[in-house]
């Protein structure tokens, strides 16, 4: 919990927004995205494929970090919302015959709508119950997709059309790079709006925020639905990039992967989820273990890092930066 004084700062800030809507973090973000855009010149097709999967995981981790890290709503349904986005898009494309891009939009909207309803039903619960309720939602979604195999083809997997006519990973690399930039920019900007300050005030002390006139329930629902929409759209794009949907995408291990990526990189930081997702994908490629071996390494890595630096890699970097600054100051004094 934050000290009270900074709480009050946050609340007064809801009345006085920063002068510029452009967040400081967004400039290096755009620069990094531009630099990454030249990577295909150096990488082969396989590496590009690995990269865009990391970007997809990063988008999911960003959307979860928005809800759990910044909003204080410890949801365990992000992976299920992404899966629902994927299946909704498939329904729009296969059953209604809409173009694939419209399917992606439908997937995002369907997930946002379900997220809004889920939030409406569960956000008044205490955190213990809320975590269980979202976990149940995810499990029910997975089981329903598996059971209704006449429609979803169950565990066999549902084939869906590709987004692009080419299978060249460069197209998907740029697609997910763009999505990642949009997700990063959107959450950075969102956190500087009134809604962004409100949700952070609610996270730090809900009763105090309500006493200061914040409609906590509405702020939480809105953020939850936005994050669900982000996850759903990413899930729909992923489905059309791989060409196959399966209920295993709503498996709890996928949720653990999202948590590992976000927390390893830095919980409640903007860059953390991206760093974490790229880090674990890089570790996975370097070690070339079986799927289980990778998960063991990720989990062990997370336990060690989180035990020592609860702020993850970003926290470690911050500590390093402060140490360097202090040393420089000390040197300045001695000279």
């Amino acid at each position: 919990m934050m000290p009270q004084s900074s709480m009050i700062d946050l609340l007064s800030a809801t009345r006085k927004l920063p002068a510029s809507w452009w967040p400081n973090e967004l400039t290096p973000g755009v620069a990094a995205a531009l630099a990454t855009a030249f990577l295909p010149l150096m990488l082969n097709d396989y590496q590009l494929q690995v990269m865009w999967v990391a970007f997809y995981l990063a988008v999911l981790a960003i959307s979860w970090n928005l809800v759990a890290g910044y909003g204080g709503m410890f949801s365990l349904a992000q992976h299920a919302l992404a899966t629902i986005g994927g299946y909704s898009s498939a329904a729009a494309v296969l059953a209604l015959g809409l173009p694939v891009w419209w399917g992606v939009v439908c997937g995002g909207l369907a997930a946002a709508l379900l997220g809004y309803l889920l939030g409406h039903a569960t956000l008044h619960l205490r955190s213990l119950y809320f975590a269980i309720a979202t976990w149940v939602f995810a499990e029910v979604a997975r089981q329903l997709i598996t059971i209704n195999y006449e429609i979803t083809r169950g565990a066999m997997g549902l084939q869906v059309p590709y987004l692009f006519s080419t299978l060249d990973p460069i197209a998907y690399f740029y697609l997910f790079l763009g999505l990642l930039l949009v997700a990063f920019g959107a959450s950075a900007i969102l956190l500087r709006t009134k809604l962004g300050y409100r949700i952070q005030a609610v996270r730090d002390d809900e009763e105090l925020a309500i006493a200061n006139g914040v409609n906590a329930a509405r702020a939480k629902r809105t953020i939850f639905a936005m994050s669900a929409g982000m996850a759903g759209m990413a899930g729909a794009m992923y489905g059309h990039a791989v060409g196959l949907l399966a209920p295993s995408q709503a498996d709890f291990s996928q949720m653990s992967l999202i948590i590992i990526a976000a927390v390893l990189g830095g919980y409640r930081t903007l860059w953390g989820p991206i760093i974490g997702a790229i880090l674990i994908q890089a570790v996975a490629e370097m070690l070339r273990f079986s799927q289980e071996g990778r998960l063991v390494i990720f989990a062990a890595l997370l336990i060690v890092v989180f035990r020592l630096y609860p702020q993850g890699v970003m926290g470690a970097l911050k500590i390093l930066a402060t140490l360097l600054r202090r040393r420089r100051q000390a040197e300045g004094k001695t000279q």
Partner: protein
Amino acid sequence: MQLLLQSLTLALLNGAIYALMAMGITFIASIMRIINWSTGEFYMVGSFAHLALLTVIFPALGLTLPMAWLLSALLAMGLVFVLGMVVQRTLIAPMHRPGTQAFEYATIMTVALSVLLQNGAIMIAGPNQYSVPDYMRPILLEDLEIVLNGSRVASGLAALAIILLFYVLLYRTSLGLAFRGIAQNRLAAETAGLNLKTMDMLAFGIGTGLCAVAGALLAPVFLVHPLNGAAATMKGFEIIVIGGIGSLGGAVVAAFGLALVEGLGATFYRAELQQLYGFVFLIGFLVFRPQGLFGHRERRV
């Protein structure tokens, strides 16, 4: 009639083991105010420890005991009790550090732990299913013309005995009094001189130990494999929400209730929906009565 009796008895026996599992989760939740998401993995570790003791270590030592399965299940419980205490002390206790949100910290840590244990078990034991020798021969009740699975009867009775022992611990000893005090109000209990650090460690050990013994007792029925904890976790969560998080009596009642509904539903309605009955109850309770059957609000000092 036989069918009804048979499914009723099986449901009662299942209920006892569900109850062990759910009590493990709800006890930790009531003392530490966290959910242990690696519950299922401690269950799995318990069943593997039981398997190793029963099929490798006992024969290697040349032990041939009449009730070896019970001894090995209890030993597995003891092992996981110690493991749970070590895990709590090293990984979960830091949740009380200043500036840390305890619930978030514990959730992240136990989710990571569950990934580690589950996939570690797959790496070590392979994705195989192992079985243990039956605890007892099938029981034939000739008057009623029912055949009962002997292992189920044996493990159900053992589970009932452990539940009784746990109740004695909670309601007839000073340690139990301390636990009940902490469950009512942590701050007041600490003011009264209880060492919460030690008590948290003990509670986590006991909770995981209960899950482990459930895993060991269920080994002949649900087999031993690295993913057997997942189904058990699901049941455990359904039961604690129905019974009310933190309420042990609620967990026992809900466990038997759920086992009955599942058993009868699978026999007389549709078997493929067996896994979903619990979910229906769970959602109903979360929406209409989130405190569960017997849950109550925490008392303040």
